[in-house]
């Protein structure tokens, strides 16, 4: 594609109120179509970096360019439209327990104004990809941990984003489930989706390879 990477992070520092510096002077480029692992001990700044990329938080200094847009300077009304291009997968799933599996996955489409049969077809396609098609009427609370994580993935990919950010997607899962999920990510990557996955599981990274970025105490380890 173009010479400019999809995500360009230059000299980014994030300091939280109270003085704790979560990230110090990080610079990094992620190309379109890459599968990147963010690794490091817990508290190393992996989640913070993902939040900065998704414009959930803003950098204290430095800048982050995603798809040509300066994320740190983005105006509030532009944020929702920016986030629609990103699939977010959270460590704690952030599923809504007051509605069905189907309705959870429908939410991003509904927000973007996709409705009716078109939306239903896409929801089922996403559920099918993560193997939850037979559970569409279930409540998320009745699902196992692995199933909840897969549901979160279905919600992230239903609007077909070009970029997926996953924060510790395999953290609380046993090995077989973790491999399931990683296989899914690899399949998305093969069709051109850029993935940034944070994990502290070295075995997983060794098995799936790809671009690896290691953080330690908020600093980049080269």
């Amino acid at each position, binding site marked *: 594609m173009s010479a400019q990477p999809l995500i360009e992070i230059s000299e980014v520092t994030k300091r939280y109120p109270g003085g704790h510096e979560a990230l110090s002077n990080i610079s990094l480029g992620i190309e379109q179509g890459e599968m990147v692992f963010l690794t490091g001990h817990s508290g190393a700044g992996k989640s913070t970096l993902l939040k900065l990329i998704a414009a959930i938080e803003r950098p204290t200094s430095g800048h982050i360019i995603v798809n040509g847009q300066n994320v740190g300077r983005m105006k*509030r*009304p532009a944020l*929702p*439209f920016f986030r*629609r291009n990103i699939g*977010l997968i959270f460590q704690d799933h*952030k599923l809504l327990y007051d509605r069905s599996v189907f309705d959870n996955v429908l939410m991003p489409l509904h*927000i973007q*104004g996709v*409705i009716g049969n078109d939306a239903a077809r896409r929801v089922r396609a996403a559920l099918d990809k993560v193997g939850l098609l037979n559970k569409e009427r279930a409540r998320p609370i009745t699902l196992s941990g692995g199933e909840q994580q897969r549901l979160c993935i279905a919600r992230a990919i239903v609007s077909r984003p070009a970029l997926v950010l996953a924060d510790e997607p395999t953290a609380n899962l046993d090995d077989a489930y973790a491999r399931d999920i990683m296989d899914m990510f690899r399949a998305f990557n093969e069709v051109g989706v850029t993935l940034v996955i944070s994990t502290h599981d070295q075995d997983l990274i060794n098995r799936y390879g790809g671009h690896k970025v290691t953080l330690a105490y908020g600093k980049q380890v080269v």
Partner: protein
Amino acid sequence: MKAWLAHHLHSLKIAAEQFRAAPVATLFTILVIGVAVSLPAGLYVLLGNLERAAGGVKPQAEVTAFFKEVDETKARALAASLKKRVDVADVQFVSKTDGIQRLESAGLAEVALGLPENPLPHTLVLTPKEATPEALEALAAEVKSNPDIERVLVDTDWIKRLAALMQLGRDLVGMLIVVLGVALAAITANTIRLQIYAQEDAIEVARLIGATDRFIRRPFLYFGGIQGLVGGLAGWSLVIAGGLLLESSVAQVAAAYGSQFLLAGLSLQETGLLLLFSSMLGWLGAYFAVGRALRQGD
């Protein structure tokens, strides 16, 4: 267009679910809004009826002069000469017989019938060009100096008092509208605030996956608006119910005076305005509550 409609329908559905989720709490809120609406609306209706009861009275400065026992032609001659004066706008001559007829048509027929003979004098009602108290007093003094005139009434005071009282009432209605309107918006804002607490997760997730503020706000706005509307209807019902309760006793009072008086309620336009106003305030309260929550989420 279809998506837009679907959005709104969906927001309405969510709002309806909120009603279903807490029917008792919602009912109480609606009742409170109803009472808040009924107070100014009720006072407004009361005032309207009072004004109507005081009806025939024109808030105009007049000088009334009563003749001594003189015959009608002489009295009419004086009326004609007074009419030519530059400071007099109008002279109305009310003869003895006219006077008793007026009494009868004013609904006091029984009173008139009860009188052995017509006790009313010929009367002049003078309207001065200038309605200032000075002009009135001057005219009154002038008329009083005429030997055929028994008594002169300058009846500005009670008209002034009535007008002042009515104005006071209108001011009171205005004040109540403002105070209770703020209360209505605040009540709604509080209900919405509780709903937002209950839905914090959904709002957070919606924002993370790209929902605009408008999208998040819409169901709450619908809820606030509909709650305001239903509350307004409750207030309207309270006013109408109050009117019905009072109707028979008002009729009795009127009958005791040999008159008829029907209480007027709110007109269609007034009802529409009331409902519009209460819905808008509910909407506004919701808007502020959600706006606050959205800003806190940043």
